[in-house]
């Protein structure tokens, strides 16, 4: 029996939550609320994920547009992005995700701009395609970008605007790359569908469009890292110190040019498996770039991932540099941890966030000695929970079927075998997750509670029953939880702060969690008169 199983009776918690739900809702939710088994078999219990949220449930999920523009394409600073639709979608995705970017003085940076066709009722009735075409031209006149991306919002698909034809024509007319994404909000069941649509578009319209080979001996792409709070900057620093060339990230602090050069990389390192695994697979099929899963959240996880990178390249000098860097930076992280850990040891955490972070951040909490008693994702699929081994068995439902799965062929001129099958097998044998991801549940303790697409109602019940010391979730949950007097760390865009990636990021996170959990304000919730209400009179002057 693990520590967690001793601390909570997950099955009882699960039953209590389900008992409070209407029967129809409970029937669905009982498959999405699962008690974890970690019995060493390598097989996790099956969880239902990537399925519709029932109407009326106060969910934390967003939409396809949010996943497409907000998450994947948004962080690329020099692709001018136009939202085709009424004004709201473009407005809400304007600078709210904290994707940092660092443009040189002469480089384009369009991220502080929100561009929209601001469709009006006439456009809805008579079609908005003409307006879109005009808007693209006007945007080109104003900004002279190298590339323009168009994002469809809900009504666009319904009124039948051919945004792809508009993109094609304008691409020709303007002599730049113009591409469109049919990422209407109603497609799919969450942001996840939008990730896939964005992957497809970036892969076909941007990747491989730059023929200039980047310099460097060891070239990597970093996939699924969006530079929230400067995470990519910290990783760029580490790679720079090690002499590793980061060709591009997908997509934090990236550019049209850098993504165009992606096929030159020797290996793809995958951070957020959920949002970018499509890209990793397509790059492998078309260009022969192997990929493996990394995690740069947590000092130990960072060290492990860096060692995997060094081992992949098999260069003794790189290995030595890597060990030296790990030794130096780990020591700094250890030193910071030493004073903080005693204040956090044994505290409990629940986290429901994203499609990878609820997994990645568990490593940081382990370093802090805190227990993750329950976790789940907002928009992940079964493979993110149970590992990629379950992919062949996942039933593709109607909501997923309408998201295009690209047929990718080998690029005969640019395909290059980076490692032979035998080499890759050897790397796997030494513990590098080549082409694989084991998912979150395998790393969670036996008897912990795993919950997909947690709702407001369930979060309230969990707070009441589990009384955690810390919650990790998003902005919509933040103040609900904090009204209870329980701190919440926002792990979508971090609210403030970061970076949390790498060793220095880990130090930032240790301090942030110490600030949140041990902050003075939580001790002041009860007023003096609440603590001793019966006292009616007093002696002396006090």
């Amino acid at each position, binding site marked *: 029996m693990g520590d967690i199983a001793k601390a909570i009776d997950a099955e009882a918690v699960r039953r209590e939550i389900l008992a409070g739900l209407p029967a129809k809702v409970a029937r669905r939710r009982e498959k999405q609320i699962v008690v974890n088994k970690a019995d060493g078999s390598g097989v996790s219990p099956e969880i239902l994920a990537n399925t519709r949220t*029932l109407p009326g449930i*106060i969910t934390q999920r967003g939409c396809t547009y949010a996943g497409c523009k907000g998450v994947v394409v948004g962080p690329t600073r020099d692709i001018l992005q136009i939202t085709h639709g009424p*004004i*709201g*979608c473009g407005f809400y995705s304007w600078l709210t995700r904290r994707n940092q970017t660092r443009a040189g003085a002469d480089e384009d940076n369009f991220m502080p701009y929100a*561009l929209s066709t601001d469709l009006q009722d006439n456009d809805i009735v008579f079609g908005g395609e003409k307006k879109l075409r005009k808007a693209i031209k006007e945007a080109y006149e104003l900004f002279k970008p190298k590339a323009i991306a168009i994002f469809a919002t809900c009504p666009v698909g*319904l009124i039948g605007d051919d945004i792809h034809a508009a993109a094609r024509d304008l691409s020709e007319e303007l002599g730049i790359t113009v591409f469109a994404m049919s990422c209407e909000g*109603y497609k799919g069941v969450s942001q996840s569908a939008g990730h896939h649509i964005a992957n497809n578009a970036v892969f076909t319209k941007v990747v491989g469009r730059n023929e200039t080979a980047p310099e460097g001996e060891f070239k990597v792409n970093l996939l699924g890292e969006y530079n929230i709070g400067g995470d990519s900057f910290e990783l760029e620093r580490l790679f720079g110190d090690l002499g590793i060339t980061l060709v591009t990230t997908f997509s934090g602090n990236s550019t049209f040019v850098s993504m165009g050069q992606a096929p030159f990389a020797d290996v793809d390192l995958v951070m957020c498996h959920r949002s970018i695994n499509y890209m990793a697979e397509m790059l492998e099929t078309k260009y022969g770039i192997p990929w493996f899963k990394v995690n740069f959240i947590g000092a130990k996880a960072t060290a492990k991932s860096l060692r995997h990178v060094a081992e992949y390249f098999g260069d003794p000098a790189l290995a030595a540099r890597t060990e030296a860097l790990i030794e130096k930076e780990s020591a700094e992280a250890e030193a910071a941890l030493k004073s903080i850990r005693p204040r956090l040891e044994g505290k409990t955490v629940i986290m429901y966030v994203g499609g990878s972070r609820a997994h990645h951040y568990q490593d940081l909490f382990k370093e802090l000695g805190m227990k993750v008693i329950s976790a789940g994702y907002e928009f992940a699929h079964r493979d993110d929970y149970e590992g990629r081994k379950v992919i062949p068995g996942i039933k593709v439902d109607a909501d997923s079927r309408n998201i295009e799965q690209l047929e990718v062929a080998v690029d005969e001129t640019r395909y290059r075998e980076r490692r032979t099958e035998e080499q890759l097998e050897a790397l796997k044998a030494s513990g590098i997750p080549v082409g694989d991801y084991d998912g979150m549940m395998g790393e969670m303790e036996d008897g912990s509670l795993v919950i997909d697409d947690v709702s407001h109602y369930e979060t309230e019940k969990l707070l009441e029953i589990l009384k955690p010391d810390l919650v990790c979730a998003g902005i919509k949950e933040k103040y609900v939880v904090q009204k209870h007097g329980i701190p919440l760390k926002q792990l979508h865009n971090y609210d403030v702060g970061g970076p949390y990636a790498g060793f220095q990021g880990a130090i930032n996170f240790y301090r942030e969690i110490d600030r949140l959990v041990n902050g003075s304000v939580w001790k002041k919730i009860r007023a003096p008169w609440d603590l001793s209400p019966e006292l009616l009179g007093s002696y002396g002057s006090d």
Partner: protein
Amino acid sequence: MPSSKLLKHTEAAIVPREALTVNPAKTCQPIGAMYAALGVHRCLPHSHGSQGCCSYHRSALTRHYKEPVMAATSSFTEGASVFGGQSNLLQAITTEFSLYDPEIIAVHTTCLSETIGDDIPQIIGKAKAEGKIPAGRYVIHANTPSYIGSHVTGYSAMVRAFVDYFAESTGRRHGKLSILAGWVEPSDMAELKRMLAELGAPFILLPDTSGVLDAPLTGRFEMYPEGGTRLDDIRLMGDSYAAIGLGPFATGAAAKLLDTKCKVPMNILDLPIGLSATDRFIDKVRKLAKVGVPDSIAKERGRLLDMMSDMHQYTYGKTVALAGDPDQLAPLAEFLTDLDMKVKYLVTGTPGKSFEPRLEELIGKAEPGDYRGAPADLFALHQRLKSQGTDLLIANTYGKLIAHDEDIPFVRFGFPILDRVGHSDFPYVGYRGGMRLLEKILSVLMDRIERDAPNEKFELVM
């Protein structure tokens, strides 16, 4: 240094635009409907559309208020978008009454459900017929297509919906004045109530987000905080002897409906921002309620006037650029003009024919070199400021990018404010709100004088 600019691609030269909006000075209708519905006690806003709408609106309101914002969604998928959202909404109604126990579910539509053409009253009728709405509980709706108007329009539609669904005329007038609040902060709602109480005029305020979006930290979360207009009070609005709508864009529709439906005579005023607009509000309440203006209110007025005169040397002749919503901008511009400042640039994203004439009444016609963009966007405003500059910028949080690049003293005002606190707690309406606004303006103007002063001109006493 071009590299230090945030909006480095913005140039002064105007390239005509017909189709492209850049850096909008508005957002879409549904968020306004959601905000208005939160101002009614035990009301759960419901977004009839994709999940993303509800998520974006809740996030934006949460960031603005740093408070829980509870709302539900019909969670449309592709099927609902093809076959209509009826079954989603019916299921949502059942689930919401069962799980969240609201008294009212306030449905607002989105561009998606409007484009499909979902007939919400029909769906509500069906829910009622099928017994999905428990006794004493209500489902109401407002049509808020995102492709018409702006967030202000959505607010207006939802306030009107409350009147439409609930206000009743029994023929027996009571002594309460109906006040329809424009889109102002919880702090402003509280200040309106305080002023009305001070005047001794009994009233009903709709909506009222004070006590909802300014909740204290107590160690308990309340799904429905104690604030918000009571349903019984909304019913009673139909028997008011008069109604005042504060801000024509946000409350005109509801005030008109109350007049035509319940024969409650309407009075549409500017939001009481600044001295003159507050004067008109107080004077109107005095006349309608037949009360005298108490000394306490007269003293508040006097203190604002005192501050205006004491500090006149810092405001006189200064040029100002404004961006925001029409109901706020009109009285704000008037207040600044009362301070002998010059409103040279003004932008709102909200369309509406009545705005510019009203502005002209309050501050006069635009002079050569002035810019009044109604509707226009922040990009257009920025271009004008690039070529001519200004002494002060007043706008929502997005204005800070312009203020940063052009080095303009900046006061945050309007929606959304994503990067400062205070707006939930300290009002801008009324005489006291005017003092707070003036204090904010003076602070940034005087900080600037000190920042730029050569040592020999650096003053101790100002």
